[in-house]
């Protein structure tokens, strides 16, 4: 009985806060747009028979026929992948440095990584607008040092989006890699050197493979939210930045087309299921290895 209650709590939570909302979104995606409140038909007021008869996959066929949508999906996948790789390259040296730092420094370094979370995400992205704009700090600095003659156009380009994503999701990459490197037994590196490896070879043949789980976990933690990212592309990106999160927002608020917006969301979720399942599998494998 006690067992049942314990299991029931998380399941009830999932049901109420995930499955039920998803069912509603899925239902809306099968509806038609209408000038009404709520802005779609049918609703349950129409009676069950009419309700089910009126549902169809029209919105999904529409998404497939209009190339704006699949281009937005592809572009999101590309931006999310590239930013994940960039984040990895920035995060790995930081995590490595933290793991090799003297023991008494590590809590402080960890604190510094987490510290940005104390400020609102939105404010931090706005701050980047001040840094990256034509008259921003970065351009002023570059002009002052004479590295560039003309101010660079960074804000409202994909580069700004990459900077924004890498900056925002960096801690999600650092922490799992740090956790993996922290557990790494130093004598393994010594053993590799003892057996004839140079420092670099030892890093490549021992450190990297043994932090693999951290790299995979971090990559998914960055890739998954970056794929549906809306705030960063809409604030830092330009008109040519095409990301599905932005498209979704425009469908919903500008066109007030809830059914199409819901269809976009359902497809996004389906795309995300693949990396989420892979991520879960990686976590499980790691847990087994630790056991």
């Amino acid at each position, binding site marked *: 009985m006690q067992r049942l209650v314990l299991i029931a709590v998380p399941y009830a939570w999932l049901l109420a806060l995930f499955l039920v909302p998803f069912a509603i979104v899925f239902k809306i995606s099968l509806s038609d747009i209408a000038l009404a409140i709520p802005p779609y038909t049918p609703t349950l007021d129409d009676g069950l028979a009419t309700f089910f008869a009126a549902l169809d996959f029209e919105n999904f066929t529409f998404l497939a026929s209009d190339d704006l949508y699949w281009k937005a999906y592809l572009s999101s996948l590309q931006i999310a992948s590239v930013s994940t790789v960039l984040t990895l390259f920035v995060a790995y040296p930081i995590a490595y440095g933290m793991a090799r730092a003297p023991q008494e420094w590590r809590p402080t370094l960890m604190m510094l990584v987490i510290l940005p979370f104390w400020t609102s995400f939105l404010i931090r992205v706005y701050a980047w607008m001040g840094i990256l704009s034509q008259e921003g700090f970065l351009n002023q600095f570059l002009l002052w040092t004479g590295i560039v003659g003309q101010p660079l156009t960074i804000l409202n380009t994909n580069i700004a989006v990459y900077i924004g994503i890498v900056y925002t999701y960096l801690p999600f990459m650092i922490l799992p890699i740090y956790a993996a490197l922290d557990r790494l*037994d130093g*004598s*393994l590196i*010594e*053993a*590799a*050197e*003892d*057996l*004839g*490896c*140079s420092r670099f*070879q030892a890093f490549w*043949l*021992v450190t990297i*493979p*043994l932090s*693999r789980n951290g790299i995979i976990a971090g990559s998914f933690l960055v890739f998954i939210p970056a794929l549906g990212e809306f705030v960063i592309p809409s604030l830092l990106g330009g008109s040519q930045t095409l990301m599905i999160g932005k498209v979704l927002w425009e469908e919903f608020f500008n066109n007030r087309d809830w059914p199409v917006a819901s269809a976009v969301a359902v497809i996004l979720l389906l795309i995300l299921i693949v990396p989420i399942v892979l991520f879960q599998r990686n976590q499980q494998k790691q847990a087994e*290895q630790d056991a």
Partner: protein
Amino acid sequence: MAQTVFAPWDEPAEKPLIRFRNVTKRFGSFVAIDDLTLDIFEREFFALLGPSGCGKTTMMRMLAGFEDPTAGAIELAGEDIAAVPPNKRAVNMMFQSYALFPHLSVYENIAFGLRRDKRPKADLDDRVAEMLKLTRLEKFARRKPHQISGGQRQRVALARSLAKAPKLLLLDEPLGALDAKLRQATQFELMDIQEKTGTTFVIVTHDQEEAMTVASRVAVMDEGRIMQVATPERIYEAPDSVYVADFIGEVNIVSGRARAIGDERYAVEWQEGQTPLIAASERPFADGQPCHLALRPEKVAIHAEQPSDIDNAVQGKILDIAYLGNLSTYHVEVPGGQVIKAQTANTRRISRRSYTWEDTVWLSWTPTAGVLLPE
């Protein structure tokens, strides 16, 4: 048939493989190794023995190249190796934690060092197969380290460190993680492998029994210095300091003052009103010089009546009996309150034990049974 005894340390012409020359190692203000000089010869099985923190691991890490000496020089086959990084030394190490690569199979772990040498594939396969056979691991080649037992892991670590046929193999507490039975079996296996491969082994251990079993010579260390280097027999039977006598095995130390009574014979005044103890010693003592008589418990005999015709006999009372199965150790309080341990082999079953608690007994030993040591 005369068998040649392996004792290169007694041959003045023999060149040592490893030579520590006045090596000092400091970590900050802590002196880990204090002006140490030592020769280790080819094909030796050399044991560094001492309590934790005595510097034995530091010596090993300096040989492997993970630490540099603060002063002095370490020579390998006549060459100073201070400037040679660990990956360029013909020295391999077996780590205390084994340090097996968890992401590689047993085969790949053993092949790891060989791959760095860029050996041809067939050559590499042969060598790994040879190592697997030597350590009886053929069946486990495809397993990962977490899929095999502790004893098997230990053998993988040994095979991996031997694969490159190093001039010198370092073993850092190699058997520490094994249980007592397996440990004993593995000690003989180690000796066997050392003999087969002809590699020079240097083993670090805090287990004196292990050092005595495997080593051709033992160095007893304390606080960064070597107290004595000798064969296991000499370390046990002829320790040259109280520290060494006390560190290796059980010992009774009777303190007193020496008085010469003949050729290499001394009387030790150990307790007022008691007959002096007679001890033989090649080491000279001045009259009245403070000395310690180190006496192994198994060399002390125990009697119910006062024995005749023996130089040293002391009366006492049994305080405690430690029954160890094969042996019994009697703790006997002698005049003055000192407790002397006497050990007897239990060659008969225990049904009739001759002595029990509170019994008054006589202890006796010959003049050559003990070693007379200076202050």
